[in-house]
Protein backbone atom coordinates (compact mmCIF):
# COMPACT_ATOMS: atom_id res chain seq x y z
CA UNK A 1 0.00 0.00 0.00
CA UNK A 2 1.28 3.50 -0.79
CA UNK A 3 1.56 6.02 1.99
CA UNK A 4 1.19 8.95 -0.33
CA UNK A 5 -1.23 9.51 -3.19
CA UNK A 6 -0.95 12.50 -5.53
CA UNK A 7 -4.18 13.33 -7.40
CA UNK A 8 -3.88 14.75 -10.90
CA UNK A 9 -6.40 15.73 -13.54
CA UNK A 10 -5.87 14.02 -16.87
CA UNK A 11 -7.01 17.03 -18.86
CA UNK A 12 -4.38 19.27 -17.27
CA UNK A 13 -1.52 17.11 -18.55
CA UNK A 14 1.92 17.17 -16.96
CA UNK A 15 2.14 20.92 -16.48
CA UNK A 16 4.37 22.65 -13.96
CA UNK A 17 1.75 22.18 -11.23
CA UNK A 18 1.53 18.43 -11.85
CA UNK A 19 5.32 18.13 -11.76
CA UNK A 20 5.48 20.11 -8.51
CA UNK A 21 2.73 17.99 -6.99
CA UNK A 22 4.55 14.78 -7.86
CA UNK A 23 7.79 16.27 -6.54
CA UNK A 24 6.16 17.09 -3.21
CA UNK A 25 4.58 13.64 -3.10
CA UNK A 26 7.91 11.94 -3.85
CA UNK A 27 9.70 13.82 -1.06
CA UNK A 28 6.97 13.05 1.47
CA UNK A 29 6.88 9.37 0.47
CA UNK A 30 10.67 9.10 0.78
CA UNK A 31 10.60 10.71 4.22
CA UNK A 32 8.19 7.95 5.22
CA UNK A 33 10.17 5.25 3.45
CA UNK A 34 7.04 4.43 1.49
CA UNK A 35 5.68 4.56 -2.02
CA UNK A 36 4.05 7.30 -4.07
CA UNK A 37 1.06 6.55 -6.26
CA UNK A 38 -0.16 9.07 -8.83
CA UNK A 39 -3.91 8.85 -9.38
CA UNK A 40 -4.87 10.46 -12.69
CA UNK A 41 -8.58 11.19 -13.06
CA UNK A 42 -10.18 11.67 -16.46
CA UNK A 43 -8.86 11.38 -20.02
CA UNK A 44 -5.09 11.67 -20.24
CA UNK A 45 -2.58 11.66 -23.09
CA UNK A 46 0.14 8.99 -23.25
CA UNK A 47 2.99 11.51 -22.96
CA UNK A 48 1.63 12.72 -19.62
CA UNK A 49 1.40 9.14 -18.38
CA UNK A 50 5.04 8.55 -19.29
CA UNK A 51 6.05 11.74 -17.47
CA UNK A 52 4.09 10.70 -14.37
CA UNK A 53 5.78 7.28 -14.38
CA UNK A 54 9.19 8.85 -13.91
CA UNK A 55 8.07 10.37 -10.59
CA UNK A 56 5.66 7.83 -9.11
CA UNK A 57 6.06 4.20 -8.12
CA UNK A 58 2.73 3.54 -9.72
CA UNK A 59 0.37 5.51 -11.93
CA UNK A 60 -3.31 4.66 -11.51
CA UNK A 61 -5.39 5.83 -14.47
CA UNK A 62 -9.01 6.26 -13.50
CA UNK A 63 -11.13 6.21 -16.59
CA UNK A 64 -14.87 6.51 -16.93
CA UNK A 65 -17.03 8.30 -19.45
CA UNK A 66 -18.50 10.30 -16.56
CA UNK A 67 -15.04 11.75 -15.92
CA UNK A 68 -14.61 13.20 -19.42
CA UNK A 69 -15.84 16.60 -18.19
CA UNK A 70 -15.13 17.89 -14.71
CA UNK A 71 -18.05 17.37 -12.35
CA UNK A 72 -17.34 17.71 -8.64
CA UNK A 73 -19.76 14.98 -7.63
CA UNK A 74 -18.37 12.43 -10.13
CA UNK A 75 -14.72 13.31 -9.51
CA UNK A 76 -15.33 13.10 -5.77
CA UNK A 77 -16.96 9.69 -6.12
CA UNK A 78 -13.99 8.47 -8.17
CA UNK A 79 -11.35 9.79 -5.76
CA UNK A 80 -13.22 8.46 -2.75
CA UNK A 81 -13.37 5.00 -4.30
CA UNK A 82 -9.69 4.93 -5.34
CA UNK A 83 -8.28 6.48 -2.16
CA UNK A 84 -10.55 4.23 -0.11
CA UNK A 85 -8.95 1.21 -1.80
CA UNK A 86 -5.37 2.49 -1.53
CA UNK A 87 -5.81 3.61 2.11
CA UNK A 88 -2.89 6.08 2.08
CA UNK A 89 -1.67 8.16 4.98
CA UNK A 90 -1.63 11.33 2.88
CA UNK A 91 -3.47 12.49 -0.22
CA UNK A 92 -2.01 15.51 -2.01
CA UNK A 93 -3.81 17.72 -4.51
CA UNK A 94 -2.66 20.79 -6.45
CA UNK A 95 -3.71 24.42 -6.19
CA UNK A 96 -6.23 24.57 -9.02
CA UNK A 97 -9.93 25.30 -8.55
CA UNK A 98 -10.91 21.63 -8.78
CA UNK A 99 -8.41 20.54 -6.12
CA UNK A 100 -9.49 23.31 -3.79
CA UNK A 101 -13.14 22.41 -4.33
CA UNK A 102 -12.66 18.72 -3.57
CA UNK A 103 -10.06 18.57 -0.78
CA UNK A 104 -12.26 19.02 2.30
CA UNK A 105 -15.09 16.94 0.89
CA UNK A 106 -12.71 14.09 0.06
CA UNK A 107 -11.26 14.22 3.56
CA UNK A 108 -14.76 14.08 5.02
CA UNK A 109 -15.75 11.06 2.94
CA UNK A 110 -12.53 9.22 3.79
CA UNK A 111 -12.89 10.00 7.50
CA UNK A 112 -9.68 12.03 7.37
CA UNK A 113 -8.82 15.67 7.91
CA UNK A 114 -7.84 18.41 5.49
CA UNK A 115 -5.71 21.50 5.06
CA UNK A 116 -5.08 23.74 2.09
CA UNK A 117 -2.62 26.19 0.59
CA UNK A 118 0.28 24.27 2.11
CA UNK A 119 3.81 25.37 1.30
CA UNK A 120 5.25 22.37 3.12
CA UNK A 121 4.03 18.99 4.31
CA UNK A 122 5.91 16.78 6.77
CA UNK A 123 5.29 14.11 9.36
CA UNK A 124 5.84 14.91 13.06
CA UNK A 125 4.68 12.93 16.06
CA UNK A 126 2.95 10.51 13.72
CA UNK A 127 0.72 13.23 12.25
CA UNK A 128 0.97 15.04 8.97
CA UNK A 129 1.63 18.72 9.45
CA UNK A 130 0.86 21.33 6.83
CA UNK A 131 2.62 24.69 6.91
CA UNK A 132 0.72 27.62 5.45
CA UNK A 133 0.29 31.37 5.52
CA UNK A 134 -2.59 32.74 7.60
CA UNK A 135 -3.97 36.17 8.50
CA UNK A 136 -3.40 37.35 4.95
CA UNK A 137 0.20 36.15 5.00
CA UNK A 138 1.14 38.06 8.14
CA UNK A 139 1.66 34.82 10.06
CA UNK A 140 2.62 31.23 9.39
CA UNK A 141 0.71 28.34 10.92
CA UNK A 142 1.61 24.69 11.23
CA UNK A 143 -1.61 22.68 11.14
CA UNK A 144 -1.52 19.17 12.63
CA UNK A 145 -4.02 16.89 10.91
CA UNK A 146 -5.38 14.52 13.50
CA UNK A 147 -7.25 12.07 11.28
CA UNK A 148 -5.91 9.79 8.56
CA UNK A 149 -5.76 10.23 5.66
CA UNK A 150 -4.50 13.79 5.70
CA UNK A 151 -5.86 15.38 2.52
CA UNK A 152 -3.92 18.51 1.58
CA UNK A 153 -3.88 20.83 -1.40
CA UNK A 154 -0.48 22.34 -1.86
CA UNK A 155 1.06 25.24 -3.75
CA UNK A 156 2.29 22.74 -6.28
CA UNK A 157 3.59 25.25 -8.80
CA UNK A 158 6.13 26.51 -6.31
CA UNK A 159 7.50 23.06 -5.58
CA UNK A 160 10.47 21.42 -7.25
CA UNK A 161 9.77 18.45 -9.53
CA UNK A 162 11.01 15.01 -8.51
CA UNK A 163 14.29 13.85 -10.03
CA UNK A 164 13.66 11.31 -12.79
CA UNK A 165 13.84 7.66 -11.74
CA UNK A 166 13.05 4.24 -13.18
CA UNK A 167 9.52 4.39 -14.57
CA UNK A 168 6.79 3.04 -12.29
CA UNK A 169 4.09 0.66 -13.40
CA UNK A 170 0.74 1.77 -14.81
CA UNK A 171 -2.63 0.42 -13.75
CA UNK A 172 -5.87 1.14 -15.54
CA UNK A 173 -8.84 1.30 -13.22
CA UNK A 174 -12.45 1.22 -14.36
CA UNK A 175 -14.84 2.17 -11.61
CA UNK A 176 -18.26 1.90 -13.22
CA UNK A 177 -19.42 5.14 -11.63
CA UNK A 178 -23.09 5.85 -11.15
CA UNK A 179 -24.18 9.13 -12.72
CA UNK A 180 -24.80 11.82 -10.12
CA UNK A 181 -27.90 13.60 -11.32
CA UNK A 182 -27.70 16.45 -8.86
CA UNK A 183 -25.26 18.73 -10.69
CA UNK A 184 -24.59 19.10 -14.40
CA UNK A 185 -22.27 21.33 -16.37
CA UNK A 186 -24.38 23.39 -18.77
CA UNK A 187 -21.86 25.91 -20.15
CA UNK A 188 -18.22 26.91 -19.91
CA UNK A 189 -15.91 29.53 -21.26
CA UNK A 190 -12.14 29.68 -21.43
CA UNK A 191 -10.61 33.15 -21.55
CA UNK A 192 -8.67 33.93 -24.71
CA UNK A 193 -5.24 32.55 -23.98
CA UNK A 194 -2.42 34.98 -24.45
CA UNK A 195 0.76 33.10 -23.72
CA UNK A 196 0.96 30.93 -20.64
CA UNK A 197 -1.41 31.18 -17.69
CA UNK A 198 -0.41 33.54 -14.92
CA UNK A 199 -0.04 30.70 -12.41
CA UNK A 200 2.30 28.89 -14.78
CA UNK A 201 4.29 31.97 -15.81
CA UNK A 202 8.02 32.09 -15.13
CA UNK A 203 8.26 35.86 -15.61
CA UNK A 204 5.66 38.33 -14.38
CA UNK A 205 5.48 42.12 -14.61
CA UNK A 206 2.85 43.52 -12.26
CA UNK A 207 1.43 47.01 -11.81
CA UNK A 208 -0.28 48.63 -8.86
CA UNK A 209 -2.23 51.59 -7.59
CA UNK A 210 0.80 53.85 -7.97
CA UNK A 211 0.44 53.73 -11.76
CA UNK A 212 -2.53 56.03 -11.32
CA UNK A 213 -4.68 54.82 -14.21
CA UNK A 214 -5.06 52.37 -17.10
CA UNK A 215 -2.76 54.27 -19.47
CA UNK A 216 0.56 53.34 -17.83
CA UNK A 217 -0.38 49.65 -18.03
CA UNK A 218 0.16 49.92 -21.78
CA UNK A 219 3.75 50.97 -21.08
CA UNK A 220 4.11 48.04 -18.70
CA UNK A 221 2.80 45.71 -21.37
CA UNK A 222 5.54 46.89 -23.70
CA UNK A 223 8.07 46.11 -20.95
CA UNK A 224 6.49 42.70 -20.37
CA UNK A 225 6.65 41.98 -24.10
CA UNK A 226 10.35 42.92 -24.18
CA UNK A 227 10.96 40.53 -21.26
CA UNK A 228 8.70 37.75 -22.52
CA UNK A 229 6.70 38.13 -19.30
CA UNK A 230 3.03 37.84 -18.38
CA UNK A 231 1.11 40.82 -17.02
CA UNK A 232 -0.45 40.96 -13.58
CA UNK A 233 -1.80 43.60 -11.23
CA UNK A 234 -2.58 44.33 -7.61
CA UNK A 235 -6.12 44.28 -6.28
CA UNK A 236 -6.26 48.08 -6.19
CA UNK A 237 -5.57 48.31 -9.93
CA UNK A 238 -8.17 45.64 -10.72
CA UNK A 239 -10.79 47.12 -8.38
CA UNK A 240 -10.29 50.49 -10.07
CA UNK A 241 -11.19 48.83 -13.37
CA UNK A 242 -7.86 49.68 -15.00
CA UNK A 243 -7.15 46.07 -15.96
CA UNK A 244 -9.18 42.80 -16.05
CA UNK A 245 -9.91 41.03 -12.76
CA UNK A 246 -8.19 37.94 -14.16
CA UNK A 247 -4.86 39.78 -13.77
CA UNK A 248 -5.28 40.13 -10.02
CA UNK A 249 -2.60 38.57 -7.84
CA UNK A 250 -2.97 38.22 -4.08
CA UNK A 251 -5.09 36.64 -1.40
CA UNK A 252 -8.29 37.32 -3.34
CA UNK A 253 -6.69 36.78 -6.72
CA UNK A 254 -4.20 34.37 -8.20
CA UNK A 255 -1.29 32.88 -6.31
CA UNK A 256 1.74 32.86 -8.55
CA UNK A 257 5.20 31.33 -8.35
CA UNK A 258 7.38 32.78 -11.11
CA UNK A 259 11.16 32.80 -11.32
CA UNK A 260 10.96 36.62 -11.42
CA UNK A 261 8.19 38.93 -10.20
CA UNK A 262 8.73 42.59 -11.09
CA UNK A 263 6.40 44.81 -9.04
CA UNK A 264 5.95 48.30 -10.44
CA UNK A 265 4.32 50.96 -8.26
CA UNK A 266 2.96 48.31 -5.90
CA UNK A 267 3.22 49.17 -2.20
CA UNK A 268 3.13 45.55 -1.05
CA UNK A 269 0.09 45.06 1.21
CA UNK A 270 0.27 41.70 2.98
CA UNK A 271 -2.70 40.43 0.95
CA UNK A 272 -0.69 41.03 -2.21
CA UNK A 273 2.45 39.46 -0.76
CA UNK A 274 0.44 36.33 0.05
CA UNK A 275 -0.09 35.82 -3.66
CA UNK A 276 3.55 36.29 -4.67
CA UNK A 277 5.39 34.79 -1.69
CA UNK A 278 6.46 31.73 -3.68
CA UNK A 279 8.21 33.78 -6.36
CA UNK A 280 11.89 32.91 -6.62
CA UNK A 281 13.04 36.51 -7.08
CA UNK A 282 10.91 39.55 -6.31
CA UNK A 283 12.10 42.97 -7.39
CA UNK A 284 10.35 46.30 -7.34
CA UNK A 285 10.36 49.77 -8.81
CA UNK A 286 8.84 52.23 -6.38
CA UNK A 287 9.61 55.82 -5.51
CA UNK A 288 8.97 55.21 -1.80
CA UNK A 289 12.03 53.54 -0.21
CA UNK A 290 9.85 52.57 2.77
CA UNK A 291 7.26 50.73 0.67
CA UNK A 292 6.68 47.31 2.30
CA UNK A 293 7.28 45.56 -1.03
CA UNK A 294 11.04 46.17 -0.64
CA UNK A 295 11.06 43.95 2.48
CA UNK A 296 10.33 41.05 0.16
CA UNK A 297 12.64 42.02 -2.69
CA UNK A 298 16.03 40.64 -3.56
CA UNK A 299 16.78 43.89 -5.35
CA UNK A 300 14.91 47.05 -6.19
CA UNK A 301 15.06 50.51 -7.63
CA UNK A 302 13.83 53.58 -5.77
CA UNK A 303 12.63 55.75 -8.62
CA UNK A 304 9.54 57.15 -10.27
CA UNK A 305 8.39 54.38 -12.59
CA UNK A 306 7.57 56.94 -15.31
CA UNK A 307 11.26 57.73 -15.70
CA UNK A 308 12.33 54.08 -15.71
CA UNK A 309 9.89 52.03 -17.77
CA UNK A 310 10.65 53.53 -21.20
CA UNK A 311 14.47 53.23 -21.05
CA UNK A 312 14.23 49.85 -19.28
CA UNK A 313 12.00 48.51 -22.07
CA UNK A 314 14.47 49.74 -24.66
CA UNK A 315 17.42 48.17 -22.81
CA UNK A 316 15.72 44.81 -22.33
CA UNK A 317 14.57 44.86 -25.93
CA UNK A 318 18.27 45.02 -26.91
CA UNK A 319 19.07 42.07 -24.63
CA UNK A 320 16.27 39.96 -26.13
Amino acid sequence: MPDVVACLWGRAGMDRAAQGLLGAGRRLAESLGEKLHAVVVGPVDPAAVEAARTAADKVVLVEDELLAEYNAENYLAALTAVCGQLAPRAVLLGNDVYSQELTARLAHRLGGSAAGDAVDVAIADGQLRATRGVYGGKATAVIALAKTPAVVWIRARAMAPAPARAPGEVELLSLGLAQDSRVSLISSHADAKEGVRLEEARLIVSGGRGLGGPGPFEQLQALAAAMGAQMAASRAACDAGWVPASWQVGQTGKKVAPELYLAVAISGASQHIMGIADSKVICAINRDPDAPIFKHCRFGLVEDYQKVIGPLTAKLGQHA
Partner: protein
Amino acid sequence: MNIIVCIKQILDPEIPARDFRVDGAKRQAERGSANLVTNIFCENALETALQVRDAHGGKITVVTCGGVEAEEVLRKALALKADEAVLLESPIENPDPLFVARTLAAGIRKLEPFDVVLVGREAGDWGAGQTGGLLAEELSTPCIAFAESFAPGTEPGRLQVKRQTDNGWEGFESSTPLVITITNHDKNVPRIPKTRDVMQSYRKPLTKWPLAELGIDVDSNGGYSHIADLFVPVKETHCEFLSGDTLEAKVDALAERLAGIIRSI
Protein backbone atom coordinates in the same frame (compact mmCIF):
# COMPACT_ATOMS: atom_id res chain seq x y z
CA MET B 1 -36.37 31.10 -2.35
CA ASN B 2 -35.13 30.24 1.11
CA ILE B 3 -31.50 31.37 1.33
CA ILE B 4 -29.19 30.85 4.30
CA VAL B 5 -25.99 32.88 4.39
CA CYS B 6 -23.24 31.81 6.78
CA ILE B 7 -21.06 34.72 7.82
CA LYS B 8 -17.90 34.95 9.90
CA GLN B 9 -16.49 37.68 12.06
CA ILE B 10 -12.74 38.11 11.70
CA LEU B 11 -9.96 40.40 12.81
CA ASP B 12 -9.76 43.29 10.35
CA PRO B 13 -7.37 42.01 7.63
CA GLU B 14 -6.42 45.60 6.79
CA ILE B 15 -4.45 45.89 10.04
CA PRO B 16 -0.89 46.89 9.02
CA ALA B 17 1.75 44.19 9.37
CA ARG B 18 3.72 46.33 11.84
CA ASP B 19 0.74 46.28 14.25
CA PHE B 20 0.10 42.58 13.88
CA ARG B 21 1.05 40.26 16.79
CA VAL B 22 0.31 36.66 17.56
CA ASP B 23 -0.30 35.10 20.95
CA GLY B 24 1.95 32.08 20.72
CA ALA B 25 0.40 30.32 23.71
CA LYS B 26 -3.17 30.68 22.47
CA ARG B 27 -2.02 30.22 18.87
CA GLN B 28 -4.12 33.04 17.50
CA ALA B 29 -3.71 36.68 16.56
CA GLU B 30 -3.82 39.29 19.30
CA ARG B 31 -6.81 41.54 18.95
CA GLY B 32 -4.91 44.67 19.94
CA SER B 33 -6.67 47.79 18.72
CA ALA B 34 -7.91 46.13 15.53
CA ASN B 35 -11.60 46.06 14.66
CA LEU B 36 -13.63 42.91 14.24
CA VAL B 37 -15.28 42.92 10.82
CA THR B 38 -17.34 40.69 8.57
CA ASN B 39 -15.16 38.50 6.38
CA ILE B 40 -15.14 40.08 2.91
CA PHE B 41 -16.13 36.88 1.04
CA CYS B 42 -19.09 36.51 3.45
CA GLU B 43 -20.10 40.06 2.53
CA ASN B 44 -19.90 39.04 -1.14
CA ALA B 45 -22.13 36.05 -0.29
CA LEU B 46 -24.71 38.24 1.46
CA GLU B 47 -24.70 40.70 -1.44
CA THR B 48 -25.28 37.83 -3.89
CA ALA B 49 -28.19 36.63 -1.74
CA LEU B 50 -29.71 40.11 -1.54
CA GLN B 51 -29.61 40.47 -5.32
CA VAL B 52 -31.30 37.10 -5.87
CA ARG B 53 -33.98 37.80 -3.25
CA ASP B 54 -34.63 41.27 -4.65
CA ALA B 55 -35.05 39.83 -8.16
CA HIS B 56 -36.92 36.62 -7.39
CA GLY B 57 -38.37 37.00 -3.89
CA GLY B 58 -37.71 34.79 -0.89
CA LYS B 59 -36.13 35.03 2.52
CA ILE B 60 -32.55 35.44 3.74
CA THR B 61 -31.43 34.06 7.08
CA VAL B 62 -27.89 34.91 8.21
CA VAL B 63 -26.14 32.53 10.58
CA THR B 64 -22.88 32.85 12.46
CA CYS B 65 -21.03 30.94 15.19
CA GLY B 66 -19.31 32.77 17.99
CA GLY B 67 -19.57 34.66 21.22
CA VAL B 68 -21.56 37.74 22.08
CA GLU B 69 -19.27 40.00 20.00
CA ALA B 70 -20.35 38.13 16.85
CA GLU B 71 -23.78 39.75 17.20
CA GLU B 72 -22.26 42.77 15.47
CA VAL B 73 -21.91 41.04 12.10
CA LEU B 74 -25.50 39.81 12.36
CA ARG B 75 -26.72 43.35 13.12
CA LYS B 76 -24.85 44.61 10.07
CA ALA B 77 -26.49 41.91 7.93
CA LEU B 78 -29.91 42.90 9.31
CA ALA B 79 -29.11 46.53 8.47
CA LEU B 80 -28.50 45.35 4.89
CA LYS B 81 -32.04 43.87 4.98
CA ALA B 82 -31.39 40.22 5.73
CA ASP B 83 -34.73 38.90 7.05
CA GLU B 84 -33.57 36.91 10.05
CA ALA B 85 -30.37 36.37 12.02
CA VAL B 86 -29.24 33.44 14.13
CA LEU B 87 -26.26 33.30 16.49
CA LEU B 88 -24.99 29.81 17.25
CA GLU B 89 -23.44 30.57 20.61
CA SER B 90 -20.02 28.95 20.74
CA PRO B 91 -17.46 29.54 23.47
CA ILE B 92 -14.60 28.21 21.33
CA GLU B 93 -12.23 30.89 20.05
CA ASN B 94 -10.31 28.79 17.58
CA PRO B 95 -12.61 26.04 16.30
CA ASP B 96 -11.33 23.47 13.80
CA PRO B 97 -13.05 23.44 10.37
CA LEU B 98 -15.10 20.30 11.01
CA PHE B 99 -16.38 21.65 14.33
CA VAL B 100 -17.52 24.82 12.54
CA ALA B 101 -19.22 22.83 9.77
CA ARG B 102 -21.00 20.56 12.26
CA THR B 103 -22.18 23.51 14.31
CA LEU B 104 -23.47 25.34 11.23
CA ALA B 105 -25.11 22.17 9.90
CA ALA B 106 -26.91 21.64 13.21
CA GLY B 107 -28.17 25.22 13.16
CA ILE B 108 -29.19 25.02 9.50
CA ARG B 109 -31.14 21.80 10.10
CA LYS B 110 -33.22 23.69 12.63
CA LEU B 111 -33.98 26.25 9.92
CA GLU B 112 -35.22 23.73 7.35
CA PRO B 113 -36.51 23.84 4.72
CA PHE B 114 -33.89 25.76 2.76
CA ASP B 115 -32.98 25.93 -0.93
CA VAL B 116 -29.42 27.12 -0.79
CA VAL B 117 -26.68 27.82 1.74
CA LEU B 118 -24.08 30.44 0.82
CA VAL B 119 -20.67 30.70 2.46
CA GLY B 120 -17.62 32.80 1.64
CA ARG B 121 -14.92 31.14 -0.45
CA GLU B 122 -12.50 31.43 2.48
CA ALA B 123 -11.98 33.66 5.50
CA GLY B 124 -9.49 36.49 5.69
CA ASP B 125 -8.02 35.17 8.95
CA TRP B 126 -7.34 31.43 8.73
CA GLY B 127 -8.29 31.09 5.09
CA ALA B 128 -8.86 27.36 5.37
CA GLY B 129 -11.55 27.42 2.69
CA GLN B 130 -13.14 24.25 4.04
CA THR B 131 -16.46 25.37 5.50
CA GLY B 132 -18.47 25.08 2.29
CA GLY B 133 -17.26 21.61 1.36
CA LEU B 134 -17.56 20.18 4.87
CA LEU B 135 -20.97 21.75 5.32
CA ALA B 136 -22.20 20.17 2.08
CA GLU B 137 -20.99 16.78 3.29
CA GLU B 138 -22.62 17.25 6.70
CA LEU B 139 -25.90 18.26 5.03
CA SER B 140 -25.53 15.65 2.25
CA THR B 141 -25.96 18.25 -0.49
CA PRO B 142 -23.90 19.03 -3.58
CA CYS B 143 -21.44 21.92 -3.40
CA ILE B 144 -20.29 24.38 -6.04
CA ALA B 145 -17.22 26.44 -5.13
CA PHE B 146 -15.95 29.85 -6.30
CA ALA B 147 -19.34 31.01 -7.59
CA GLU B 148 -19.90 34.62 -8.60
CA SER B 149 -23.69 34.39 -9.03
CA PHE B 150 -26.69 32.09 -9.00
CA ALA B 151 -30.28 32.21 -10.24
CA PRO B 152 -33.38 30.01 -10.46
CA GLY B 153 -32.95 27.04 -12.79
CA THR B 154 -35.02 25.74 -15.66
CA GLU B 155 -37.60 24.22 -13.33
CA PRO B 156 -38.58 24.53 -9.66
CA GLY B 157 -36.13 22.88 -7.28
CA ARG B 158 -33.13 23.68 -9.47
CA LEU B 159 -30.59 26.50 -9.49
CA GLN B 160 -28.12 27.74 -12.06
CA VAL B 161 -24.70 28.71 -10.76
CA LYS B 162 -21.88 30.52 -12.56
CA ARG B 163 -18.47 29.98 -11.11
CA GLN B 164 -14.92 31.14 -11.80
CA THR B 165 -12.31 28.63 -12.91
CA ASP B 166 -8.57 28.92 -13.38
CA ASN B 167 -8.97 30.22 -16.92
CA GLY B 168 -12.58 31.31 -17.39
CA TRP B 169 -15.94 30.28 -16.01
CA GLU B 170 -18.34 27.32 -15.83
CA GLY B 171 -22.13 27.24 -15.57
CA PHE B 172 -23.81 24.46 -13.62
CA GLU B 173 -27.38 23.52 -12.94
CA SER B 174 -28.00 21.79 -9.63
CA SER B 175 -30.85 20.39 -7.66
CA THR B 176 -31.65 22.02 -4.34
CA PRO B 177 -30.74 22.07 -1.54
CA LEU B 178 -27.24 23.11 -2.44
CA VAL B 179 -24.20 24.69 -0.78
CA ILE B 180 -22.39 27.41 -2.77
CA THR B 181 -19.13 29.11 -1.87
CA ILE B 182 -19.01 32.69 -3.13
CA THR B 183 -15.96 34.50 -4.42
CA ASN B 184 -15.54 38.21 -5.10
CA HIS B 185 -16.66 39.64 -8.42
CA ASP B 186 -17.48 43.10 -9.67
CA LYS B 187 -21.17 42.10 -9.62
CA ASN B 188 -21.25 41.28 -5.90
CA VAL B 189 -19.43 44.24 -4.38
CA PRO B 190 -21.09 44.64 -0.95
CA ARG B 191 -23.57 47.50 -0.61
CA ILE B 192 -23.30 50.00 2.26
CA PRO B 193 -26.16 50.05 4.78
CA LYS B 194 -28.08 53.29 5.33
CA THR B 195 -27.62 54.92 8.73
CA ARG B 196 -31.35 54.62 9.43
CA ASP B 197 -31.24 50.87 8.68
CA VAL B 198 -28.24 50.44 10.97
CA MET B 199 -30.20 52.10 13.80
CA GLN B 200 -33.22 49.93 13.12
CA SER B 201 -31.18 46.74 13.01
CA TYR B 202 -30.63 47.02 16.76
CA ARG B 203 -34.39 46.78 17.32
CA LYS B 204 -34.77 43.61 15.24
CA PRO B 205 -34.95 40.24 17.00
CA LEU B 206 -31.91 38.00 17.03
CA THR B 207 -32.24 34.25 17.56
CA LYS B 208 -29.63 32.62 19.80
CA TRP B 209 -29.07 28.91 20.06
CA PRO B 210 -26.49 27.58 22.53
CA LEU B 211 -24.37 24.64 21.36
CA ALA B 212 -26.03 22.34 23.88
CA GLU B 213 -29.37 23.04 22.22
CA LEU B 214 -27.81 22.01 18.88
CA GLY B 215 -26.47 18.74 20.23
CA ILE B 216 -22.87 19.83 19.62
CA ASP B 217 -20.22 18.50 21.98
CA VAL B 218 -17.64 21.21 22.72
CA ASP B 219 -15.01 18.56 23.44
CA SER B 220 -15.12 17.38 19.82
CA ASN B 221 -13.17 20.49 18.74
CA GLY B 222 -9.59 19.71 17.78
CA GLY B 223 -10.30 16.12 16.81
CA TYR B 224 -10.01 17.05 13.14
CA SER B 225 -7.00 19.32 13.21
CA HIS B 226 -5.24 21.68 15.56
CA ILE B 227 -2.73 24.49 15.34
CA ALA B 228 0.66 23.04 16.25
CA ASP B 229 2.45 26.36 15.82
CA LEU B 230 1.72 29.96 14.87
CA PHE B 231 4.36 32.61 14.36
CA VAL B 232 5.17 35.77 12.46
CA PRO B 233 7.80 34.74 9.93
CA VAL B 234 11.09 36.58 10.01
CA LYS B 235 11.80 38.05 6.59
CA GLU B 236 15.41 37.29 5.89
CA THR B 237 15.37 38.96 2.52
CA HIS B 238 17.67 41.91 2.36
CA CYS B 239 16.78 44.19 -0.50
CA GLU B 240 19.72 45.42 -2.51
CA PHE B 241 18.85 48.91 -3.66
CA LEU B 242 20.40 49.43 -7.07
CA SER B 243 22.37 52.64 -7.25
CA GLY B 244 24.01 54.80 -9.86
CA ASP B 245 25.12 58.37 -10.36
CA THR B 246 22.56 58.96 -13.07
CA LEU B 247 19.12 57.64 -13.89
CA GLU B 248 20.63 55.94 -16.92
CA ALA B 249 23.16 54.11 -14.75
CA LYS B 250 20.39 52.94 -12.43
CA VAL B 251 18.27 51.70 -15.33
CA ASP B 252 21.34 49.94 -16.77
CA ALA B 253 21.94 48.20 -13.46
CA LEU B 254 18.32 47.07 -13.24
CA ALA B 255 18.28 45.92 -16.87
CA GLU B 256 21.46 43.89 -16.32
CA ARG B 257 20.00 42.14 -13.29
CA LEU B 258 16.71 41.39 -14.99
CA ALA B 259 18.40 40.19 -18.18
CA GLY B 260 20.62 37.89 -16.13
CA ILE B 261 17.61 36.18 -14.58
CA ILE B 262 15.78 35.98 -17.90
CA ARG B 263 18.83 34.35 -19.53
CA SER B 264 19.08 31.79 -16.72
CA ILE B 265 15.53 30.49 -17.16
